[in-house]
C-alpha cells in the first residue's frame, strides 16, 4: 500500500474526523468498501502516546478508533452526509503482541461485524512491516443528535 494511491492522506483526513492535534492518530485512509477499510499512521517523534521510544497501548487503540471514525466519515460523505462524531463504547478481546517503535508506520485493517442502532461492532488488526502488533474488537457509539 502506498500513500500515493490512498483515498485520503494527512490534511485530507481532517475532513473525515473531528479529532485534531495533538490527538490526531490516523493519517491515511488507503481503501474502503462497504464494510472493510484499511488505514494507517506513521508514528512521528513526540507523538502524544509515545514513551521510551515505543508507541503505547492507548495510542494503538485510539489509532484503531480513529481509523474506524475516518471510515465512517468516508462512508457518510459518499452518502452526502456530514462526518459523525463517534465514541468508543467498548474495547473487547484486545490482545497486544508488541509495542511498535516510534517512527513505525502502522497499517490497520478494520472490518464491520454488525450495526444496531447507533452502535457498530468492528474487528481490527494493526500490523507493522507485515507483523501483527495487536488485535481487538471495538464498539463505536455514534453521538445521537
Amino acid at each position, binding site marked *: 500500500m502506498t500513500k500515493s494511491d490512498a483515498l485520503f492522506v494527512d490534511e485530507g483526513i481532517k475532513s473525515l474526523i473531528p479529532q485534531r492535534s495533538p490527538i490526531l492518530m490516523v493519517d491515511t485512509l488507503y481503501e474502503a468498501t462497504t464494510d472493510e477499510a484499511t488505514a494507517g499512521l506513521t508514528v512521528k517523534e513526540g507523538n502524544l502516546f509515545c514513551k521510551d521510544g515505543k508507541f*503505547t*497501548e492507548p495510542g494503538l487503540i485510539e489509532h484503531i478508533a480513529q481509523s474506524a471514525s475516518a471510515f465512517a466519515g468516508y462512508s457518510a460523505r459518499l452518502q452526502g452526509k456530514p462526518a459523525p462524531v463517534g465514541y468508543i463504547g467498548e474495547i473487547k478481546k484486545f490482545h497486544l503482541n508488541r509495542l511498535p517503535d516510534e517512527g513505525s508506520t502502522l497499517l490497520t485493517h478494520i472490518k464491520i461485524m454488525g450495526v444496531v442502532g447507533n452502535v457498530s461492532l468492528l474487528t481490527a488488526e494493526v500490523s507493522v512491516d507485515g507483523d501483527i502488533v495487536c488485535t481487538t474488537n471495538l464498539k463505536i457509539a455514534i453521538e445521537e443528535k
Partner: protein
Amino acid sequence: MLTNYFTLLDQQPQQDGSILFTVKLNPDCEVYEGHFPGNPVCPGVCNLQMLKECIEHYTGKTLIISDIKQCRYTAVISPLTQSILNFKAMITEAENGYSVQGTVFDERNIYIDIKFQLTINI
C-alpha cells in the same frame, strides 16, 4: 506521554481487598485542544492509561496492557463536569503481572467497567 492528564489524590485499601483510587482530572491538559476543539471530552484511551498508571503506582511496577477482556464505557466523561473520579480495582497477581477488575464512578454515575491484564515490563 501525557504527564498532566490527572492527579492521583488518594489510594485506600478496602475491606473486600480492593483498592479505591481517587483521581482529579485536569481540564487544562493539552489533549483537549484536539478532543474536541471547543468541546472537551475525555478520550476513552486516556482514561485507560490513567487506570494503568494507578495500578503502576500501587504495585510500584512498570506495566504494559497485554490483554483487555472487556472495557465498557457506559457514560461520557468531561473534565469540566466530572473533575473527581473514583476507581475501585480488584488487583490479583497473575503470570508475569496482574489481573485487574475495576469500575470508575462518582456519586452520580458509573463510567467505566473493565477487566484487563497487565504484564510487568522488564
